[in-house]
């Protein structure tokens, strides 16, 4: 007669075990049901598309209870991507103010995390964390859907009981810590080739170098310092052909630019595509648009303008006169 009674008791106990630790229960429900509100700043749309990719059949974030909602009042996560310019700033602050607490903020993409290549723009109002407290950074230009999912999972695991009470999680201040040693090592190693080091802010450095030393420094960054090559951008100014090679150290949230200036009349530089293949097509495109000759490049044939431009005419190459002064 006793046996059924005791069985019932243990069953009831188990049910209570689920309910009693109320804080844990709340926390768990919150983690399992994150509704995302997507704030797109002045974005180039690539991050937006990657975010949408997360919700498509291939990745399906609804598995984890993550939904995209239309109203900030329903949101648990504010996902910010794109550059925050003067117009966006007011709106982002207003949206953040209207969000019901607890709200988590995730900065997506190079622009959201650091400002990316727009840091020096006169409309730039600072990376997201300058305006509102950010809980997770997902760097990349754009980050892959896998990276976004990994970031959100890390955010969910980080979000403990203590943080729930505060409403927002403090930012983890690892960013910018590794800045000093990096530059010093580069300075020691390539002393003569470094023309100028400009520290724009705590996570963005522009190093102007001698173009002859580019392959060595890039290889050092890539192989020894574990930097990742993001992209390169070129510009034709009166000083000559300027190329910015953007490198990122994702673990430190640091973006490092190698800046070279090539001669106006004979723009030539060693190709980086033998170190990492990521620069292959961007160099090919620069060759096509600017006429910069990349030495030892595997294939410099025209990529997009085939048949539209005559040989030797480069659309982005400018002709400067003295009156431009």
């Amino acid at each position, binding site marked *: 007669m006793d046996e059924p009674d005791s069985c019932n008791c243990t069953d009831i106990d188990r049910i209570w075990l689920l309910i009693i630790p109320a804080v844990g229960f*709340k926390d*768990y*429900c*919150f983690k399992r049901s994150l509704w995302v509100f997507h704030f797109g700043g002045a974005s180039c749309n690539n991050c937006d598309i990657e975010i949408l990719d997360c919700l498509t059949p291939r990745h399906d974030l*609804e*598995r984890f209870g993550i939904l995209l909602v*239309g109203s900030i009042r329903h949101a*648990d996560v504010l996902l910010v991507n794109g550059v925050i310019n003067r117009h966006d700033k007011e709106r982002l602050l207003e949206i953040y103010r209207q969000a019901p607490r607890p709200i988590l903020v995730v900065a997506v993409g190079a622009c959201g995390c650091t400002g990316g290549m727009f840091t020096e723009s006169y409309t730039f109002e600072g990376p997201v964390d300058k305006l509102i407290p950010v809980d997770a950074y997902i760097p990349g230009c754009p980050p892959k859907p896998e990276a976004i999912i990994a970031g959100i999972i890390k955010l969910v695991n980080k979000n403990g009981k203590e943080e729930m009470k505060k409403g927002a999680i403090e930012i983890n201040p690892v960013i910018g810590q590794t800045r000093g040693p990096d530059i010093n090592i580069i300075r020691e190693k390539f002393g003569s080739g470094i023309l100028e080091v400009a520290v724009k802010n705590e996570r963005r450095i522009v190093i102007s170098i001698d173009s002859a030393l580019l392959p060595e420094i890039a290889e050092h960054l890539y192989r020894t310092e574990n930097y990742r090559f993001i992209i390169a951008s070129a510009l034709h100014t009166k000083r000559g052909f300027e190329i910015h090679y953007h490198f990122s150290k994702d673990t430190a949230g640091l973006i490092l630019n190698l800046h070279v200036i090539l001669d106006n009349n004979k723009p030539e530089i060693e190709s980086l595509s033998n170190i990492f293949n990521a620069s292959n097509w961007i160099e090919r495109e620069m060759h096509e648009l600017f006429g910069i000759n990349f030495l030892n490049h595997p294939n410099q044939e025209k990529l997009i303008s085939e048949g539209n431009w005559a040989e030797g005419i480069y659309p982005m190459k400018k002709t400067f006169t003295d009156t431009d002064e």
Partner: protein
Amino acid sequence: MNLAGTLFYFLVFPGLLFVAVAGAFLSWFDRKITARVQFRVGPPFLQPYFDFFKLLLVKETILPKHGSPMLFLLTPVFAVFGATLAGVFILLPLLNIEAGFKGDVLVIFYLLTIPSFSYITGALASGNPLAAVGGSREMKLILGYELTFLLVIAGIVMKSGQQIDLVEIIANQKDGTPFIGSISGILLFIAAIFCIQGKLALVPFDMPEAESEITEGIFIEYSGVPYALIRLTKYIMLFILPAFMVALFMGGFSFDGIHILWSVLKILAVVLLITLIRNTNPRIKIRQAIRFFAIWMNLIAVIALILIAFGY
């Protein structure tokens, strides 16, 4: 009947607790089917409960600055009560617990509109212009589908030999064939399914809460506890409306042996139909929706009524 029994009916079985749990299950079913239709994996089984408890326990409630905070907070409560009351009146006869009363079909018909009216009132009380747009759309949508729904119920009443209580309607079908087994029954069922689609505000009739267009419309200002109650109302409606359909068209439930399985499958089949309609259609404009109900669905219902009068 004593007060404790009434409260038990209202709060536990077949009232609030039961319809909420069953509705949350159907909400998961709906989302899972949607995911499978789109070749996705879909949410876990307990997802509706996570959503509800997160909104109820964790999130902050924000009151509108311009508007009427009291009405804004009260209307979700009205919605839950109306939906639960309708659920009790539907389920008591349906589950063979109690017989109900004379004319309860009409009472259920009125109770089923309370959630929609509460949403409208809450939306207008929030003072948000997009919510006002959503509220006006919901109002027009009600004007569209209510006449059709009334015609459907009139058809059912005619079919069951002028009986206006649910228990008689169910008994009538148990003796003969279910009403869906005749031509007029099929026509009425088609009209009723679209009415339900409108009542649940699911695609193609989700224009009151079109999230990509007026950002959740009538629910735009709701957060925290009131929004949890709205979600709860949605779960409840997703259970009791298909249950009402089963009672009206498919001969109700029965609970001896294998028939329990059939009863559950009937509900799931209706929800599956609703889900498939919502996954294979785009959102239409409010003008198109009113036209759809006012002309085509009413036409179907009237044809069905004529067929019933001639005995089909």
